[in-house]
């Protein structure tokens, strides 16, 4: 019995930037793309001097699924499930950012209830995303208990969102000009329960991690980046805020209902791993605070705009009225007719600025859908966070950067 079934040599998909060490005692180490530290699919080729990383060459693209090409073959509506799978930790934010971009291009104004509901769900999704990031990064540093606590909350959130949307991870809940459907009965009550439970569990995480000697030693003053460097390398979101800049699109260029909410923007001091962890923890608290305000503010009313260019007619009318039947047919077969033009809309996703650049040629199919994905840009500057630190620090740095394969490679 042979170990290998074939003797075929397998090709290497990437070409490293360097293959000889720059110094005599340098060693070149390959990490990934299938490695416990690179959750997701990333390859880091690092040159080490002893334990220290001298140079790092970051390769991504192992999850390039042809998102943009796939979009060009779908109508504006039917590509929403693809959009959800960009950042699968917070799929709702992706969907809403995309719908917002299309609505801007069409000149559609969403209804007040949808505006508040989208804000609420974006924040809820942000909590799930930060939980995933923190859970994964602390687990890689050995904190299994914290991981299990956080997973418990996240599962409640997932099940709760499944009650609303029908799916646990990838929801396809946003629609152009509205949402798929209204809240089910008792949803808000359960939401309040989960928020209360969340506070108790996150208190335990603070107790386990914040002053934990091992955790602090692994994260304090590791992966430090200055504000100037962070902006130069295009970092946005919690990474930029951890350097001390309160740059947050929710405050700077308010969209949805954020200008009516009271919230703080947590910032760090050093721009190191610990700050990134703490900024995320504090942001979750702010999200909870915002959700509680939004529950109070949520108005009654319709979910979808009354605009036959994008909203599907009522099912009952489709079966009884010829106009509605034709409208439904045209929306399904041709897609919503989006006026020709270009638009760039950005939302503050959990990782940073998530921008959609859409080009329409006036038909029901997009001419181009481009995503400005925060993770991809962060990977371009990741080597700045790795160089000069120890090999083992790659794990903690990579965890707090929170690279999401789906949106990084698209």
């Amino acid at each position, binding site marked *: 019995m042979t170990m290998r079934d074939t003797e075929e040599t397998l090709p290497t*998909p990437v070409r490293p930037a360097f293959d000889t060490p720059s110094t005599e005692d340098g060693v070149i180490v390959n990490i990934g793309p299938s490695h416990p530290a690179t*959750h997701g699919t990333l390859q880091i080729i690092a040159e080490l001097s002893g334990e220290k990383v001298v140079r790092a060459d970051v390769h991504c693209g192992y999850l390039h699924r042809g998102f943009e090409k796939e979009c060009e073959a779908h109508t504006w509506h039917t590509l929403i499930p693809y959009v959800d*799978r960009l950042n699968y930790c917070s799929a709702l934010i992706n969907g809403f950012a995309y719908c917002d971009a299309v609505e801007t291009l069409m000149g559609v104004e969403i209804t007040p209830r949808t505006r508040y509901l989208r804000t609420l769900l974006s924040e809820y999704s942000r909590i799930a995303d930060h939980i995933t990031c923190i859970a994964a990064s602390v687990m890689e540093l050995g904190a299994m208990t914290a991981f299990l606590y956080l997973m418990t909350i996240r599962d409640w959130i997932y099940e709760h969102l499944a009650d609303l949307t029908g799916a646990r991870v990838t929801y396809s809940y946003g629609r152009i000009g509205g949402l798929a459907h209204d809240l089910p009965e008792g949803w808000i009550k359960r939401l309040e329960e989960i928020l209360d439970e969340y506070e108790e569990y996150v208190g335990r995480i603070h107790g386990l991690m914040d002053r934990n000697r091992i955790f602090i030693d692994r994260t304090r003053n590791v992966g430090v980046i200055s504000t100037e460097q962070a902006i130069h390398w295009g970092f946005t979101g919690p990474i930029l805020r951890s350097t001390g800049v309160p740059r947050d699109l929710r405050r700077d260029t308010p969209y949805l209902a954020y200008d009516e909410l009271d919230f703080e923007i947590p910032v760090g001091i050093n721009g190191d791993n610990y700050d990134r962890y703490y900024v995320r923890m504090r942001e979750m608290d702010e999200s909870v605070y915002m959700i509680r305000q939004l529950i109070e503010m949520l108005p009654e009313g319709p979910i979808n705009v009354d605009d036959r260019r994008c909203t599907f007619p009522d099912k009952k009318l489709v079966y009884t009225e010829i106009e509605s039947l034709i409208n439904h047919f045209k929306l399904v077969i041709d897609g919503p007719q989006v006026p020709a033009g270009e638009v760039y809309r950005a939302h503050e996703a959990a990782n940073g600025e998530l921008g959609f650049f859409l080009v329409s040629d006036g038909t029901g199919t997009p001419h181009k859908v481009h995503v400005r994905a925060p993770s991809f840009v962060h990977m371009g500057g990741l080597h700045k966070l790795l160089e000069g630190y120890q090999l083992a620090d790659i794990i903690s740095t990579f965890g707090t950067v929170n690279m999401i394969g789906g949106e990084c490679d698209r």
Partner: protein
Amino acid sequence: MNAAHERTGAFEYLTTRKDELVGWARKFSIFPYPFVTACCAMEFMSVSSTMYDTDRFGAALPRFSPRQSDLMMVVGTITHKQAPILKKVYEQMCEPKWVMAFGVCATSGGFYRNYAALQGIDKVIPVDVYIPGCPPRPESVIDGIMQLQDKIAHSRHPIINEKF
């Protein structure tokens, strides 16, 4: 198998019982290698943590070295860029080994039908269990694990036959 052994019914009976014994032991000590790439990873995290707990099936401890694992869970989309790595990792695993295609992308490419996505990992490596869903709910993952256990319990374990 040796033809001489087949004529003696007693020995055949014995080896069958051995297979059952080994299968029973193996099915409760699955060491998964999570080949995690995409969205399904979220459900993989859920299924291996408190709420669903794959430890109940003896499949809790992920081994991140292919040499130490016997179940490869391919969690998420495999692209053409990733395929050589998948195959390399599979070839590094020791026998006996099983492969689970977790989610519809690993099974068939899912709704990605384009230049980048591999149309199912079974084009590159053999697969034992397919779990449908995009991503599958934890319950269907557990169902998949149980089906795999069933398969392990009822298959022959040829190393034993050769040695004994």
